[in-house]
């Protein structure tokens, strides 16, 4: 027989539901606003200001942003960086995390210490720029892929994940005649798919949002990723054009509000679409590995 919920718990539940609903709305409404704005006419945007459902739908903004190849080119650049970059990230992170998880590895502790050191102290913008420059990566996509190939934080979580795989698995594989590389690729990696999927998403979102590094390292504007373009379009409109004590920019007509919103939609949608496919792996948990059995 089900237990009849008390009044107290009912009130608690309904409070919970309303709070969570309110919270969900707060996060969703800006998205709806931007999407609605991208389909609205400029007149309606100016008059009503805040729109969740435009009275008149138009594709003008989208027609405008796709009228030149710039946006598509930047999108392709970003897709390339994201796909290749994530593969590089996962490959190097796993390749480094696994040995560090093995107890029979020499110098395990000092190497880990060096890794942790980078989490606490960084060189800063200019030293990093110098390293990238001296390695000859300026103005190449490598400058966006290599310097951040391994995230120290992700590496450590990954190592912990590998560590909690039972030793017995490896031993039995060895008895069956598998070498170390074989164990890694045929036993360990397949078992780690949930963790790999999760970190892929983390890395992928990071690459998708590449902005500052691209501004610093990429000199050729045809290699700009989408975020640089997005910021360029959005920032042009936000005042500060006419007046500043030290400098006085040329006057630039700001792009229309709906165009800005359309660009935001186009640049955000693809990465949002990736999420549902990886979401099921999230259920298994990022921090699975950190739980000591």
């Amino acid at each position, binding site marked *: 027989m089900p237990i009849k919920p008390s009044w107290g718990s009912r009130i608690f539940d309904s409070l919970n539901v309303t709070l969570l609903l309110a919270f969900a709305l707060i996060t969703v409404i800006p998205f709806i606003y931007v999407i609605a704005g991208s389909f609205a006419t400029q*007149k309606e945007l100016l008059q009503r200001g805040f729109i969740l459902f435009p009275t008149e739908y138009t594709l003008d903004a989208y027609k405008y942003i796709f009228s*030149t190849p710039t946006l598509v080119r930047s999108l392709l650049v970003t897709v390339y960086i994201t796909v290749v970059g994530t593969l590089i990230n996962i490959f190097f992170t796993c390749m480094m995390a696994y040995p560090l998880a093995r107890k029979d590895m020499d110098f395990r*502790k*000092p190497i880990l*210490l060096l890794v942790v050191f980078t989490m606490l102290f960084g060189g800063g913008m*200019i030293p990093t720029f110098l390293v990238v420059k001296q390695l000859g990566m300026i103005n190449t996509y490598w400058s966006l892929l290599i310097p951040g190939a391994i995230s120290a934080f992700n590496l450590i979580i990954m190592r912990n994940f590998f560590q909690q795989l039972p030793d017995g698995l490896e031993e039995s594989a060895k008895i069956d005649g598998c070498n170390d590389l074989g164990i890694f690729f045929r036993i360990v990696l397949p078992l780690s798919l949930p963790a790999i999927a999760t970190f892929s998403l983390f890395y992928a979102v990071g690459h998708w949002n590449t902005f500052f590094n691209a501004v610093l390292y990429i000199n050729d504007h045809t290699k700009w990723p989408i975020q640089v373009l997005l910021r360029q379009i959005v920032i*042009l409109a936000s*005042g500060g054009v006419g007046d500043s004590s030290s400098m*006085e920019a040329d006057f630039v007509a700001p792009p229309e509000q709906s165009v800005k919103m359309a660009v935001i939609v186009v640049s955000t949608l693809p990465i949002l679409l990736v999420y549902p496919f990886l979401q099921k792996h999230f259920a298994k948990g990022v921090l699975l590995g950190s739980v000591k059995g």
Partner: protein
Amino acid sequence: MNRRHRKTLGKAGALLTTAALVMTACGGNEGDAVQGTGDGGANQGPLPLTMMLPTYSPEQMPADSPVLKQLEEKTNTKLTVSWVPSSSYTDKLSATVASGELPKTFVALEPKASYIVNAARSGMFWEVGPHLKSYPNLGKMSDLVLKNISIDGKVYGVYRERDLARFGLMIRQDWLTNLGLQPPKTMDELYSVLKAFATGDPDKNGKQDTLGLAVGMQGSNIAGFKDILVYMGGANEWELQDGKLVPAHMTEAYLDTMKFYKKLYDEKLINQDFAIVQDGRAVMYKGQAGLWIDNMLDGKNIEENIKKVHPDAKINLVNRISGPKGERTRAGSGYLGMYMIPKTSVKTEAELKQILAYFDKVSEKENQNLMKYGIEGRQFTLENGTYKPTQDPKAKAEVTDGNQFMILQNEVVNYGTELEKLSTKLFQDNATIALANPAAPFISNTEIEKGKELSKIIADATVKFIMGAVDEAGWKQAVDKWLQSGGTKVIEEFNAEYAKTAK
């Protein structure tokens, strides 16, 4: 355990040293190689010229743009342009300056930024001042602006000319007509026009839903404040009083201007939410307000935007407002950044002269117009003298940001609309009544270091005063806080520099 710990540390240290050694070794070689190829071949064929420029558009000029090709032909150069988004230009430039990885010439948008000043003082850039006079066009550069861009009295670059005084009123002419009013000429008339705009139902919709002046925070500045300050007889940033430089906010006129704004605020003649409006133009766009004060070039854009909601809207430009000290207007800096030539990438004086010759050629009449409008028949057509720009996005992109190449703009033909032609005329008129900032040529280290936080103290207090959150005593406190947080030093440093030149 202790012993083991030490052992690990030792190993880590050894690893680190090796890594560092490997890196520095590689670095040295790479640097030499780059320098080796950088020299030589400078005197054969067209001059190869790499440059870094800010871009203000989402679309950039393609490297194979016919406009760029024509400029190369006419100046006998081979240009390689690297565009940097204007919003991140400063970051990129400071990293590039610090690394020494500079192109042959680049635009410094803020020639008085600390990293530029420090680099110039350490001898990183060519001093071009003494050379300018030997070029027919560059020799025409304004002494006032050259003084403004100078660092310790030396000119380290070629500035990009812009009109000296571009500020003025953009006013709804249709509202004035509806109310039977004339454009304001004095501060008193300005006030009564604003009052009428807010209370007289200028848009004839039977509702009291209009404002006089649109105000927003453009950066940390209250829109129009600096202009009204000058109309009211105040200073343009700094003022000379008995041979001493005094900052604008320590003058009587500043207080009067704040009181004027407070009156507008209290009588609801300006938008009440101005302190959180990022761009006051948005208020104008909606057709809610009748007046906007800023760069008059913006008039055309504002009119186009209002017309989307109110098709009958018409914008007029007004530049002469007389106050207690007569008609005057605020002078800008007269330039938009300057081209600098680093010694790290341009080694010889011969090459420097070639680059200056390029700048001189860019300033020829036909090249000025080429970079402004593009090629006739491709970017625009002239039918009986009326200018028609192309609508083809590809052809448009070929001349995008062309004005970033321009040095002098004195010979640009004006093909614009009525409003644009009017603004050009008013810019010239403004130049005759413009009030310059007497501290512009000087550098104060404290101002470079703390300028932003210092001006925030004043900006915050000004907003609070206008909204009635602080009274005059509170304002005085804010000024004292400004003085104590470094303002006193700023005043001292500016005056010390001023004293040097006054001798």
